[in-house]
């Protein structure tokens, strides 16, 4: 994938700081990244083939301004981004160059960002277009968790904190559907404890908490946790604290079962064959399977090729790939 040089990053940041209208018009709303960036202003960062998928990935652009359409785009794009970059280290996931490059250099992601946060002059309120507001969405500046408002980093970190192999994106979707929950979880110190995050996700999911109850819960939890060594606390401790501060957990057993399911790691088959099932004419290749094939195959303009079979983005399964054709009920690919 392509990553901006430090000099270019600083130059763009300065334009945004000093003249946000110019930045939005000439950079964010440019049709192609090549209109504002020259070939010597980025470098290749490609530890393996999988990273190159970022360049050809097509992200969803919310065409309406309704919150539900925006959230749907968040969910779709989070899947694509996390599936491609799920292996990066937390150190790399705090690299400003990575996130700003994805936003600015992938044309569809840039357009998603503009539409998602209403950054075009004609369709937004002034507050959203202040230089600080635009900077927060595009760049990865600051020294705390406020950096997670970056349009791309926000999606990846939400998945990193809420995705599990057993539940998939169930709780990621739950987070994207409640902005107060996302901010309350991601922008507070306790979020370094992953069991805390999981407890809050599961409890708010089962109790179907609304915005006001979510805010109240964070307030009460903070008061209690501020005198604890939170690093020592686990699921059961957090549930007990919730009960102590007045939450009635009728379905506690179900919640505990759900919490422990997070820890299970379903055994990944190490077979040297991959079975692709026919689903409405698409032989679906899950992202995990795709990664195995991409490592052994080659990238194409829309996807990848393995053993002379073309794989393209699936229209049925978000973020997965598929091959088209008629191979019966299933296609078996030898690795």
């Amino acid at each position, binding site marked *: 994938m392509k990553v901006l040089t430090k000099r270019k990053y600083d130059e763009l940041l300065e334009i945004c700081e000093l003249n946000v209208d110019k930045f939005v018009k000439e950079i964010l709303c440019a049709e192609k990244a090549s209109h504002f960036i020259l070939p010597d202003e980025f470098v290749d960062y490609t530890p393996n083939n999988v990273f190159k998928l970022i360049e050809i990935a097509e992200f969803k652009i919310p065409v309406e301004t309704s919150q539900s359409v925006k959230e749907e785009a968040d969910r779709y794009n989070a899947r694509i981004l996390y599936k491609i970059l799920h292996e990066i280290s937390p150190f790399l996931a705090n690299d400003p160059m990575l996130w700003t490059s994805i936003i600015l250099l992938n044309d569809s992601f840039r357009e998603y960002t503009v539409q998602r946060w209403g950054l075009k002059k004609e369709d937004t309120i002034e507050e959203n277009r202040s230089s600080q507001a635009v900077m927060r969405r595009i760049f990865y500046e600051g*020294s705390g968790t406020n950096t997670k408002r970056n349009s791309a980093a926000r999606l990846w970190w939400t998945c990193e904190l809420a995705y599990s192999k057993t539940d998939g994106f169930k709780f990621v979707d739950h987070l994207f559907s409640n902005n107060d929950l996302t901010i309350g979880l991601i922008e507070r*110190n306790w979020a370094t404890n992953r069991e805390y995050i999981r407890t809050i996700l599961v409890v708010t999911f089962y109790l179907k908490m609304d915005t006001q109850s979510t805010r109240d819960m964070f307030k009460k939890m903070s008061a209690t946790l501020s005198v*604890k060594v939170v*690093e020592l*606390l686990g699921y059961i401790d957090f549930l007990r604290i919730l009960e102590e501060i007045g939450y009635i957990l009728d379905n506690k057993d179900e919640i505990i079962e759900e919490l422990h399911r997070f820890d299970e790691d379903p055994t990944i088959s190490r077979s040297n064959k991959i079975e692709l099932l026919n689903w409405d004419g698409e032989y679906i290749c899950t992202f995990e399977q795709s990664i195995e094939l991409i490592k052994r195959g080659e990238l194409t303009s829309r996807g990848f090729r393995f053993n002379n079979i073309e794989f393209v983005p699936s229209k049925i399964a978000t973020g997965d790939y598929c091959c088209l054709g008629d191979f019966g009920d299933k296609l078996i690919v030898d690795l």
Partner: protein
Amino acid sequence: MFPYPLISIDYNEDTSYIDDLELIETDEEICLLSKSGIKRDQLPSELKVLYAKGDIGLGIRAVSPMSYFEIFSNINLDSEFEFRLSKENLSTSVHIDVVLYTKKNTNIQFRNIDVNIFGDLPDVDVPEKSFLGSIVDYKYWLYQERQRSIASVIKLNMEANYYGYELDSDKIHVFIPKNEVEKHEEIKENGDVIFGLYVFPVLVQAMAKVIDARRKINGDNEYNQYKWFDYLDMKIATLGLTESDPITACRELLEPNNVQNSIIAQLYESSH
């Protein structure tokens, strides 16, 4: 909540719990080690008793909020310890401390505490896993971050109509009056003079904000969300800059002179 602040304030003031703490950073990891460990003799008497009974414990924790990473490891008094952290899990810095905590519901009798200013304190029942105090506490910045030039957090605007500065963003913005500079050849051609006249005073103002925040107990202020603040805070901590006055601190930060010259060159390069 009553007892905790008293304990943490009192115990944090003592710096003699450990005397051979060593921190080694390699390309892959950070290793914190001590041969002698945390000294039992230095603990207040009531805590020594509780420790011996197994009511309270001691552990090292490392937290990197930017990476949502934390790790906790129990240690024993007067015992060697070694604590390793993979740098892959960290961002640019990590907060490390040694904490005292209650292992179970514990009754703490404050009558042994050497703090007379609070008068007679009652016994207090403290729930398990409660924070009692932090006895070694510091923030560690990774090597690459420590080596970063101050030019990375200062931005010069050479086209301004007036002299001024702004501190409410990630970089310190210095506005240099173009007309003034161009009027005087000796200023225009001399980076040292521009730095001394316009940049240094702003740096002193910024340094003063950081020093002021470090004097406060919780250290929070309106600027601590910005990168320049974090940078100066890191420099004070890692270089041991004088905290009694910001001018001296800035002078020490810019010594030796060749450092200042390279900063000027970098600032100029990024301003044109």
